[in-house]
């Protein structure tokens, strides 16, 4: 059984969170207003926050299972994560960042794989730069290369385009959609932007006040919005 299978229940402050979905292949678009509990749900999937109950299963491997007391640590889950500001390590150069998650033993092999990962996102020329010297779009490419170089089995992206200037956002959106389709691992993309959902062309789930209020294709959401938020998102 391939794909990411999630059902988590828990709380974030006073908010009760109930999120369930299953995804494989095409990216899943995870939408919802600020404070709806999206970040907390991501943390539960990553293992940074423990749900009260439920399960997280990746390619048939249980990462968390409340009933069977399974709770793998973050580093054992093989889920790549891109935070909103990308989180490059400022004390390492680009190559060092990308090599950080590569488990291969000999150093030369690590460097070779890191260079290859950079080439894969058309960022080979950036290898010797410092993160502080990169533009927004370059930073995102490097962060993607770094996440992919660690050979994750799933990928979570928290508003990957929100930090970019409008001028580069469109190009990066097209780039991201194409790459995610090519990599074809279970991917969850948090976004508020209809254009992102359109470009990614996957199922959409909408989280409001901790609960999923609607799920389906973007076209269905546009045709039959269940809540004012969905109408605004799809409109």
């Amino acid at each position, binding site marked *: 059984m391939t794909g990411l299978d999630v059902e988590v229940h828990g709380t974030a402050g006073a908010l009760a969170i109930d999120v369930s979905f299953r995804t494989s292949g095409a990216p899943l678009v995870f939408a919802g207003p600020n404070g709806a509990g999206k970040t907390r749900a991501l943390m539960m999937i990553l293992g*940074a926050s423990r749900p009260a109950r439920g399960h997280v299963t990746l390619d048939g491997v249980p990462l968390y299972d409340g009933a069977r007391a399974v709770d793998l640590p973050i*580093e054992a889950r093989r889920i790549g*994560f891109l935070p909103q*500001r990308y*989180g490059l390590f400022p004390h390492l150069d680009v190559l060092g960042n990308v090599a*950080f*998650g590569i488990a291969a033993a000999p150093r030369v092999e690590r460097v070779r794989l890191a260079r290859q990962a950079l080439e894969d996102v058309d960022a080979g020329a950036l290898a010797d730069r410092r993160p502080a010297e990169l533009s927004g779009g370059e930073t995102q490419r490097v962060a993607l290369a770094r*996440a992919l170089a660690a050979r994750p089995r799933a990928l979570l992206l928290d508003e990957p385009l929100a930090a970019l200037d409008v001028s580069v956002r469109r190009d990066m959106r097209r780039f991201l959609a194409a790459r995610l389709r090519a990599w074809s691992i279970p991917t969850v993309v948090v976004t508020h932007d209809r254009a992102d959902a359109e470009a990614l062309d996957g199922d959409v789930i909408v989280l409001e006040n901790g609960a999923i209020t609607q799920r389906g294709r973007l076209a269905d959401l546009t045709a039959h919005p269940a809540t004012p938020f969905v109408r605004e998102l799809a409109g």
Partner: protein
Amino acid sequence: MTPPFGSHRGAVRFLWPAAVALLSGLLLLLIALPVVGLLFSASPRELLAGLADPLVIPALRLSVFTTTLSLLLILACGTPLAWVIARRTGRGWRILETIVELPVVLPPAVAGVALLLAFGRRGLLGPALGGAGIGIPFTRAAVVFAQTFVAAPFYLQAAVAAFRRLDPDLVLVARTLGASRPRVLGAVAIPLSWSGLAGGAAMSWARALGEFGATLMFAGNMSGRTQTLPLAIYTALESDLHAAQSLSILLVVVAFVLLVAVRAGARR
């Protein structure tokens, strides 16, 4: 007619700078004059002769040895402790944070009594240690204990503050990339908090080097065994003022260099 505020302002305009100059001048004098006295009240030859006093070399050696050991102990145990304190949010951890800062405000004499009551022959661990044939008080170990007790909080405070400034996203991302928790600390948190940690270590070492009261009470004042530089100064004061003065200047220079280095590091 002059408005009432105007006349006040005139008086204040004249008096305020004078008052500031007088008050700050007094304090500056009180701080600077002893240092000046220390540096200039003896000729260089007298100071060099003072360094030949038999107390000097053993005390210098002991101070270098014990403060190095104390600092290593503080770094090795304090870094993980500071990391845990900085990452946890529970009330128990806040209480713990307050407890480990306590030695900063504790009078040294109290620290000496407290150490004796914990590790002394009739202290809490006394019977257990005695049974194992270990006596801590009035040994070199006691010197290290006293220094660690008073100096550790300076490093802990700085390290906790530095770790709290770290972007939590970086820690999370490192772990999603497969890094274990020790690797996150060693490869991400420590390198990124380097200047804060180094500053804390310098302050901590300076405090250990200057430790006097707790050492005197808990470790004693035996030349070659437990007599560190500050204790040697205290002892020399009775016999050879120039030896006391030379050692004091040495400590002032070390402290001043450290202070400048820490401030330069903090500005970066």
